[in-house]
């Protein structure tokens, strides 16, 4: 099963909000701890190494794009 990138939540704003609110009031270090745990919990729930690898690749592509943009601005 490939990584699903279509919109899966009936109310995407609720999902985004839930994550944002989980981080409210946390320091950057605490937020990073929370994210680390959350990623592991969700990865295990997906339980498919190929989907996980695709998800990592998609997420990493954002970072590459961002650094390229930064270079262009310089």
């Amino acid at each position: 099963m490939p990584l699903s990138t279509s919109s899966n939540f009936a109310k995407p704003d609720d999902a985004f909000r839930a994550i944002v609110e989980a981080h409210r009031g946390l320091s950057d270090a605490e937020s990073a701890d929370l994210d680390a745990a959350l990623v592991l919990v969700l990865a295990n729930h997906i339980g498919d190494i190929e989907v996980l690898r695709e998800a990592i690749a998609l997420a990493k592509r954002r970072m590459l794009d961002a650094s390229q943009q930064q270079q262009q601005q310089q």
Partner: protein
Amino acid sequence: MPQSKVQFGYHRHPNQDRPAAAPAEHAVVVVGAGPVGLSLAIDLAQRGQKVVLLDDADRIGEGSRAICFSKRSLEFWDRLGIGQRMVDKGVVWSVGKIFHGASQLYQFNLLPEEGHKRPAFINLQQFYAEAYLIDRVGQLPDIDLRWRNRVTALERRNDYVALTIDTPEGPYRLHAQYVVACDGARSSLRQMVGAEFSGQVFEDQFLIADVKMTAAFPTERWFWFDPPFHAGRSALLHKQPDDVWRIDLQLNPDADPAIEKKPENVAPRIARMLGHEHFDFEWISLYKFQCRRMDRFVHGRVIFAGDSAHQVSPFGARGANSGLEDAENIAWKLDRVLRRTSPESLLETYHIERSAAADENIRESTRSTDFMAPVTQQEARLRKAVLSLAKETEFGKRMVNGGRLSVPSVYDTPLSTADADTWRSGPRPGTSMPDAPVADPSGNPMFLTEAFIRKGTRFTLLTFGNGKTVDAPEGLGTIRVGGEDGLIDAAGLAGERYDADTGATYLLRPDGYVAARFRQPTRASIDAALARACGLN
């Protein structure tokens, strides 16, 4: 120290009196009388080969080296006739516990099922293993073990290898058809063939202390992350024979080795760990480690086995055990090539099978090491998350990596014949034979691994049930489970572990690996699989 002999004398050999222009010629020379070289020499000798075994020292090394020997290694040593002696002396264990801080996170059992001759692991000081192997060598006149014989030069010719060997009475030369270098991580033979030995160096330092004490800890492998007695680092406790306990403490990368290894500095750490001061030191050392391998394990007629070919971190008991798997893999192949019953290209499959195993061992032990000593801040954060999730979730427990212990590799190899039939389970080709409890036709209990040894540790057909007997090719052993004169599988475990219906047949290699399997074999299919497994096509 062991009751067996540990100090051996140098003896002049008639080979040393030969003129330099006409050196003695030997079929196979094994360099290095450690566990790998000794086991290999015994296996070769049991197969009828004459072996010269050279070692530059004249005594068994003391101190703290390998301690955990796997089920697979014990099964190999059973074939060499010394498995029982190792098990009788060793500390048998199969349970590991992982702690975080003061509390236990989880425990695992490495051999949760009954009906195997050998346990998951024994702990045994390497010097005992070597002493027992040397005793066995002494029973085999075909092994010529020469102490204080140091190889100083090696020249590779088309059809032999020329060795120059230094002794207390000066140098001499030998010619060998094949040389197997079992001369350890600092292998001088590896340098002589000019091979690279590259990989990853780990910065973290670990302190090993073997302490003698009487203690009521169970015979389990205990591993701590961030224990109360060693804040922020990891620790390992493991029992060895003679009331000796292996303690392994992770130190800071910038710790000063000279200061850290002083007994007066080690003692307080250990006392905090044990909660008392009633122990004596047998051994203290500090180490860093590397994970690396040679690109090629076979350099023409010079073959590398054990630490000379690959090195791993100690977490996972993959060093000595993988070296012993190298030995059992090369022994039968070299025997066939020397007899000219297989082409020299069979040796290439040693490289294929064992270098893939080395990659697996390096991967597993590197992952364990990285988990114990996270490299970046984010890695540390992910580890912290795993450890905290492990308290309340099963998946978290299984992600905690305090060492993944050695299991035999499954070979993806040209010697295997791919399954043509449908199998639900059982060992697929390239897998080592699973053990199972059976009884001989008179009802005496025994194990399948013992039946394999009784058939001569050669290519063997293992068949199940009442089906018509396959006409086995000449020279093959046959083990029959079920049927009129077959072994009795009263508990049904052999049939279950081999997914066997009546007629099911496994072709086992001389190292006990599955080469092929058939639901209803024909003589032609067995002949073809055998030829393939011998490297004949």
